[in-house]
């Protein structure tokens, strides 16, 4: 097979295709989006195989992948790290059922929070679920490990996690690919009860999973992704790297006078025998990992270690943010390199902002006008481009916690006695996690107003289609049983700002649930559609 240039995300996608997946499911989320962005056109070009689609949220995506496994087919489900919180229920329980068709879960963590609200480390989730986690260090491993994940999944009957991080997901390199494997034949789960997690079955299956841990460890002790090289005489420096931390270490290691002993971990559970061998050989241990101090904390434990351990816990490496070659350079004791200096130059930051002509900007103007008479108000919001409404010049929103929380928090604040309480949520976020709290609010007839910003797309991640067409959002809201007099569809144009402000104002004065849907297509999506239409014509 020829070499191909792929993003880390795309290497996972192509690895899954070549492993013979039948289906792939996801909800867009940086830095995982490009997995499915690769698979959807791939599928279109290959007669709809494998099936690849966006889903309402990560939980539905995960469960749809489980359905494929249930009938013996291989499936991929992908998400960003916080997406796994949403899918945590099916994820944890899928480790207990007897996975049938291979299932790989690609989770992209975002150390440094380039585009996220936290930097949680998914390796804890894999450990919690007691499954195997593979952590690629480069694009080639992303491809190879994804292929291998399916073999492991079918051999051990568990889901396998592929843990990615932003720098790998969004970096391109040449990947050597292998042969395409055929899809599995359709064949239902052979053992009755192996997917029915009634307590009586679940206890047995959970016990079996615990017994299997020895086999998982045997695999990670011997697999080619966990490599140990003991160098020099006893008592020297030993280094443990995990995932892409290895790249930063190798970038610097040639400059060290004595090559340290080195254990690289790319497959979990942690290969304890290899760790012990390294510790026996070394006087000092440096642990370099991208994300939390997952390996370090496990090795430190609570009993004082026999050798000195350096890492994030002891401050030789920063406990938060992303690693860089320079941070690792300092940790291995090499002097900093000097770049070019230009004294006396002021460099103001340039934060991201709403695009020029963005419909959200017009709706925020209308909202601020509507609120102008109140001495105090709260505007809870959510996750998407419209979160940028928190920044000047808008300063329009006051919270961004997790998908859907704008709706539930506004309800909670209203029921705590605060008025006016307004929730602001995007269309895609509403369909992801906003409907269920709106049901709560309508049932309680909470004194709140919900503003749904419908830009007809999932904007922040690059303009994926929303799971329902925009024209159906008002019908969906009405279907929940809300008083139709308090549901409005407005258009988010500048010329309508005064009119929109008065509609919002009127609904703030109404003491019950109101929903106002502000509609206008995202300017970027509109441009993209125009470009695609033009490309179609000139083809």
């Amino acid at each position, binding site marked *: 097979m020829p070499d191909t*240039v792929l*993003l880390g995300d795309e290497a996972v996608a192509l690895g899954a295709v070549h492993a013979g997946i039948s289906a792939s499911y996801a909800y867009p989320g*940086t*830095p995982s*989006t*490009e997995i499915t962005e690769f698979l959807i056109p791939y599928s279109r070009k290959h007669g709809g195989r494998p099936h690849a689609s966006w889903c309402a949220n990560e939980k539905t995506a995960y469960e749809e992948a489980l359905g494929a496994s249930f009938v013996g087919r291989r499936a991929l489900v992908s998400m960003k790290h916080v997406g796994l919180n949403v899918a945590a229920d099916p994820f944890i329980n899928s480790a207990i059922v007897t996975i049938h068709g291979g299932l790989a879960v690609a989770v992209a963590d975002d150390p440094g929070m*380039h*585009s996220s609200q936290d930097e949680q480390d998914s390796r804890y989730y894999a450990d919690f679920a007691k499954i195997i986690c593979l952590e690629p260090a480069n694009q080639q491993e992303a491809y190879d490990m994804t292929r291998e994940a399916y073999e492991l999944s079918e051999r051990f009957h568990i889901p396998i996690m592929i843990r990615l991080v932003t*720098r*790998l997901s*969004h*970096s*391109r*390199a*040449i990947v050597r690919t292998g042969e395409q494997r055929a899809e599995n034949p359709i064949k239902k789960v052979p053992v009755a009860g192996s997917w029915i997690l009634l307590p009586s079955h679940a206890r047995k299956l959970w016990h079996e999973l615990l017994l299997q841990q020895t086999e998982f460890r045997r695999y990670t002790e011997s697999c080619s992704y966990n490599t140990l090289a003991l160098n020099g005489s006893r008592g020297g420096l030993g280094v443990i790297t995990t995932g*892409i931390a*290895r*790249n*930063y270490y*190798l*970038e*610097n290691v040639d400059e060290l006078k004595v090559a340290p002993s080195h254990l690289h971990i790319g497959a979990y559970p942690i290969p304890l025998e290899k760790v012990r061998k390294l510790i026996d050989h070394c006087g000092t241990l440096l642990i370099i990992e991208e994300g939390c101090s997952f390996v370090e904390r496990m090795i430190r434990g609570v009993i004082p270690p026999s050798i000195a351990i350096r890492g994030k816990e002891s401050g030789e490496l920063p406990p938060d943010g992303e690693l*860089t*070659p*320079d941070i690792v*350079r300092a940790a291995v004791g090499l002097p*900093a*390199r*000097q*770049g*070019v*200096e*230009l004294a*006396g*130059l*002021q*460099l*103001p*930051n*340039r*934060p*991201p*902002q*709403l*695009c020029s002509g963005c419909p959200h900007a017009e709706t925020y103007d209308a909202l601020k006008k509507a609120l102008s008479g109140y001495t105090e108000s709260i505007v809870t919001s959510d996750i998407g*481009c419209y979160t*940028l409404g928190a920044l*000047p010049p808008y300063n329009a929103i006051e919270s961004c916690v997790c998908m859907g929380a704008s709706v539930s928090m506004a309800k909670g604040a209203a029921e705590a006695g605060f008025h006016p309480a307004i929730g602001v949520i995007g269309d895609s976020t509403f369909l992801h996690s906003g409907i269920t709290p709106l049901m709560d609010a309508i049932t309680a007839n909470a004194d709140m107003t919900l503003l749904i910003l419908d830009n007809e797309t999932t904007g*922040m*991640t*690059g303009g994926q289609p929303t799971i329902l067409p925009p024209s159906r959002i008002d019908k969906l809201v009405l279907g929940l049983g809300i008083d139709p007099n308090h549901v409005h569809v407005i258009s988010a144009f500048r010329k309508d700002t005064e009119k929109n402000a008065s509609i919002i104002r009127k609904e703030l004065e109404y003491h019950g649930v109101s929903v106002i849907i502000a509609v206008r297509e995202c300017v970027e999506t509109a441009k993209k559609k125009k470009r695609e239409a033009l*490309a179609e014509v*000139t083809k």
Partner: protein
Amino acid sequence: MKYDIIVSGVGGQGVLSISAIIASSAMQEGLSVKQSEVHGMSQRGGAVVANLRLSDKPIQSDLIPHGTASLIISMEPLEGPRYLSYLSPDATLVSSTNPVVNIPNYPQLDGLLAKLRELKKVVLVDAEKIARDKGSAQAVNMVMVGAASPLLPLKIETLEQNIRTIFARKGERVVDINLQAFRAGREAAQ
């Protein structure tokens, strides 16, 4: 041989397309390439940077270490100097002089450009004017690739061939404008 390039600009300016043209040219010349990009939130009008690494040996880190980059190509005069700490002391900043003013505290332009001229090695190009002269303001990216081309360890023919390939879909006229923009950028830098 190792040649690390930082490409900087503002979201939407085409940092990734500049990077892509150099990367594909380097691969055609048999070099290893790693290209780290920014996707997601920062692309919305914020500062954007790509780390592009070319080498005749395998490349480890996706990120360029401090003090080692051979070149910064900046689409915008304020965005280049953000990365000077990555630039090797004897390396060059190639920057467009055309500002994107989307923040309230953008520095006064003449002062900023005067400051950039203090650098030991700097090439400043009025990319927008050159692109417009050649027939399309959209060709600024190719002006900047042209302005950087005398410093790149790549053959001019390979770069031009890649420009042809990338724009072929848009017709002969667009190919021609972009090739002219590339050549004019190269001339302006020399």
